[in-house]
């Protein structure tokens, strides 16, 4: 009986320690989540396409890494503990590698097993587009609804909205650009908007020559529904330019990646939910 009492006391003692540890872990994690969720809204990192509301995302994501694995340009990365996001959740740093939307079906969303990246809206948008296409092209010889479908799905990506900084933008300053925008050792790749080559092209291999810099406009995978180079005549009669972001912007961040200024003159603000 004495032995039993002793082991019971030991069990109760270690249980108390265990409960204490759990409370500490819970409080710590809860606090960190709270401050990072608030912080995330104002920082440069984006969640991948189709991510649900941050407070649900944080538990819907099981940190498996399937979205990271399937992304053809490796835009999605795992947050470490120093990124200020919940550890192990996926994010996109568009300045380093933008999501260039050159994939076939927004696979990152389709592959997510727990719908932290929610595929249903994309699927519906795609189906609706096919329906529309069918009405006019059913008898067409070159019947191919696929481009229409994927276009509709891409329009449904809403990671954020681009915003131009008028004070540093080369176009706004009336300057052109010549050369490779991010230097010769930049690792990012970009295969939009033409998508003619099967392999992704490293940005360091692309050479541009523009009288007025408009890289963000010409490289945008969404084209002129998202960003155009606005031209107007100033009060003193000179021509002024400024990239103008439109409703079609999905926040993919290619413009941020290709922007040749030291600090990007265009940034993507995450969608606020």
């Amino acid at each position, binding site marked *: 009986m004495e032995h039993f009492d002793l082991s019971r006391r030991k069990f109760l003692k270690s249980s108390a320690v265990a409960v204490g540890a759990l409370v500490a872990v819970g409080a710590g994690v809860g606090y960190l989540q709270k401050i990072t969720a608030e912080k995330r809204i104002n920082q440069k990192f984006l969640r991948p396409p189709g991510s649900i509301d941050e407070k649900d995302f944080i538990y819907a994501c*099981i940190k498996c890494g399937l979205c990271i694995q399937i992304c053809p340009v490796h835009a999605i990365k795992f947050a470490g503990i120093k990124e200020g996001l919940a550890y192990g959740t996926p994010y996109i740093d568009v300045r380093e590698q933008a999501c260039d939307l050159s994939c076939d079906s927004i696979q990152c969303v389709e592959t997510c097993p727990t*719908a932290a990246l929610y595929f249903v809206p994309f699927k519906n948008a795609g189906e609706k587009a096919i329906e529309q296409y069918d009405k006019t092209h059913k008898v067409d010889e070159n019947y191919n609804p696929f481009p229409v479908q994927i276009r509709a799905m891409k329009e449904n990506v809403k990671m954020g909205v681009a915003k131009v900084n008028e004070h540093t933008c080369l176009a706004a300053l009336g300057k052109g650009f010549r050369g490779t925008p991010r230097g010769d050792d930049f690792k990012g790749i970009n295969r939009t908007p033409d998508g003619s080559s099967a392999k992704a092209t490293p940005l360091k291999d692309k050479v541009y020559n523009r009288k007025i810099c408009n890289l963000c406009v010409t490289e945008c995978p969404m084209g002129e529904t998202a960003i155009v180079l606005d031209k107007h005549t100033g009060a003193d009669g000179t021509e002024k330019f400024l990239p103008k972001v439109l409703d079609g912007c999905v926040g993919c961040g290619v413009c941020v990646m290709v922007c040749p200024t030291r600090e990007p003159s265009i940034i993507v603000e995450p969608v606020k939910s």
Partner: protein
Amino acid sequence: MFGKNNKKPLPSKSKEELPYVKAGMSFKAWREKFGGKHKWRTIRWSVLLGINGLFILSFMFDLSMLEGSLSGSRLVGFYLMDPFNTLQQLVISFYTGHWVHLTMNFVIGASTIFIFYFLMGGRTFCSWVCPYHFLAEWGEKLHNYFVKKKKIKEHTYNRYLRYLFWVGFLLLAFLTRNLVFEDINPVGILSRAMIYGPGLILLWILILITFEIVYSKRFWCRYVCPIGTTWSMVGNLSPFGVKFDLDKCAHCRDCQTVCLVPHELWFVEKGKATSQRHDVGSDCTRCGLCIDICPGNALSYTIKGWDKIL
């Protein structure tokens, strides 16, 4: 699960019935000749490294064989889900009413892995797949060495602490609406670090393994890990396991010294066994260390019911 046993033990064997006497050898010579093999350990480590290697190669060379990580993965297009993540999400979903993430892939992934490990014995996952188990096995060797040299003392706890942690982590998930356990889960952390590159979070693994080496043997696996606890519950009725033949046992208890969960081998002690044959309980990880070390081959893998049919 709780190792309860109310049957009366069989009478102890007489000296003539002990296997080394039957073989006409001294205990020491018999034990040295037949014990301490490494057959199953070699096979198991190959499988463990193979599975984790396949994860790494799949990402490195875009093989599409085994993608994701041990938290959730896809085996040639077929989803698999970690059971404790599944449980945590279910618990949170009850609270938030947000069931959207219960996709078909989620259901398939969770049930497939459940059925697979039910058949394979539950905690089979721990010793045959879990990378932290592999690390901790080496830590255990170091720990044993230090204990033998009397540099450190052994600290043990009550093994039912695991159930407390199991409930506790689910409760934490419920209260904070967050996969709290996944943030400190060494299985996921190691798996992700190996596949997608290391991070500062590996310091946590270092702390854990150091604690296990210098303070308490196999602390995480024995007393904390809710994944192992979940598998141990699943493995309760598993057909695949380890069986024990009293006839071939010399009560040397070598198996208990190598076992992660020695309480499951209670029947190898002299005068404890209640029948000629025993099946090891659900805490057993089916690692095969006891099978390797047993000089009399008293322990072996079995499919329950199968050997009766034969």
